[in-house]
């Protein structure tokens, strides 16, 4: 608040009442500019789709092979997928996320989705290149250096193959998943990605239900990851796409659900408005189950710090952040990152917040 006073925003704080009016907060030029920029994208309404049961690698802790998702049949009929996409469009879906197990193995289905709904993203391991005619954002999962990838994913020379496939491809965002054990490896990965002018963002390993293996985070690894993310963001500002508030939200002791209250159907009984009303997570047989529907099904909600989850969980809580300029700036930075990572052609702006801001009602890092 002091910063805004210095800038002469003319906002007064009166003890015992709402300290800031929203109209005063968004009257500050730098906030207004980013607010107007991000709100143009409020029309995005997402659903996610498992494309195939098959994958070309076998990763420890993979969410897809938890639960019964992989047990359903696979629908590979492009006409039926096209019909589904048209139905999705009719019910207001404007953004699709093509995920499990490995969408690059069914390029014809990805193309059908793109032809019907042109905004979206594909989550891939990056081993098989997705043709550029499918002009979705491409999220390439990175789980550490090549030695770790070989050990956890059974794939050799993974980062080199991923970079070769998506060099100079503006669709590509490399998503580094921090586990408890690979925190120090991000330096060599980020360095190589930056040298190849590849964009990078961060994910946090979030345990699937029932998983208690060595990839799970603990207090020490969360703190170390937080410090490491800050360092990498400072070191590679042109390539690392993450804000200070992203760092706080995703490395907090409390998971995203406890911090912000997850709005996905699985955690939200309301069907009246927002994700609880519109979001679906389709399986490969084109069925969906509301009780299981979220962006990364079969993740343990109490451990969920997933980047995809945060993109909806934090973003949807605008009201809680619109009470204070610093908090709202942090939220705007988060949404700006979300859009840069998920929306083709969206360019991230410089962050408004240089400090770590606590989520509404919480400390920066609670024990």
């Amino acid at each position, binding site marked *: 608040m002091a910063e805004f006073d210095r800038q002469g925003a003319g906002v007064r704080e009166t003890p015992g009442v709402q300290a800031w009016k*929203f109209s005063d907060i968004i009257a500050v030029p730098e906030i207004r500019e980013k607010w107007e920029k991000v709100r143009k994208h*409020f029309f995005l309404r997402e659903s996610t789709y498992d494309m195939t049961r098959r994958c070309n690698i076998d990763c420890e802790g993979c969410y897809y092979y938890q639960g019964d998702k992989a047990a359903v049949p696979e629908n590979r009929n492009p006409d039926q997928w096209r019909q589904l996409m048209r139905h999705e469009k009719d019910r207001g879906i404007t953004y699709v996320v093509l995920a499990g197990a490995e969408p690059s193995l069914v390029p014809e289905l990805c193309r059908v989705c793109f032809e019907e709904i042109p905004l979206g993203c594909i989550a891939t391991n990056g081993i098989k290149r997705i043709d550029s005619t499918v002009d979705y954002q491409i999220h390439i999962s990175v789980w550490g250096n090549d030695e770790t990838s070989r050990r956890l994913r059974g794939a050799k020379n993974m980062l080199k193959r991923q970079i070769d496939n998506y060099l100079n491809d503006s669709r590509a965002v490399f998503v580094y998943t921090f586990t408890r054990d690979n925190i120090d490896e991000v330096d060599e990965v980020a360095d190589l990605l930056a040298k190849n002018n590849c964009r990078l963002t961060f994910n946090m390993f979030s345990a699937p239900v029932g998983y208690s293996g060595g990839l799970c985070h603990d207090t020490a690894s969360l703190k170390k990851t937080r410090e490491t993310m800050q360092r990498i963001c400072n070191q590679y500002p042109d390539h690392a796409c993450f804000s200070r508030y992203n760092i706080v939200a995703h490395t907090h002791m409390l998971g995203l659900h406890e911090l912000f209250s997850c*709005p996905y159907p699985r955690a939200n009984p309301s069907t*009246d*408005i*927002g994700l609880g009303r519109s979001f679906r997570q389709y399986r490969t047989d084109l069925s969906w189950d509301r009780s299981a529907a979220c962006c990364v099904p079969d993740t343990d909600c109490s451990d969920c710090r997933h980047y995809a989850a945060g993109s909806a969980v934090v973003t949807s809580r*605008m*009201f809680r952040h619109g009470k204070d300029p610093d908090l709202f700036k942090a939220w705007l930075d988060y949404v700006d990152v979300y859009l840069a990572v998920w929306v083709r052609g969206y360019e991230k702006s410089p962050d408004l917040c240089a400090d770590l801001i606590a989520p509404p009602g919480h400390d920066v890092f609670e024990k």
Partner: protein
Amino acid sequence: MQQELTTEETIEGVAKIIIDELKLEDVTPQTFDPDLDLIDEVGVDSMDLATVALVLQDEYGVSIDEDDYPKLKSLRLIAEYVLAHAPVKS
């Protein structure tokens, strides 16, 4: 004073906010059907409602709980909510 506002006046005030914030065209505060379903018939979503809620807070001093968003399905329901929750001034 807010406690002196009538429902009709509040409906018009809320309509103006929604039109301004959501950049609705071809409708004025006077022609906005107060019973139109904002979610089903206007296409208002949770982010839109959050924006409107923040401006309503500014204009009427009413804090709208996020859990109450589903209740705010029309101008009339929003106006009634505002009147019921607005702070009484002495």
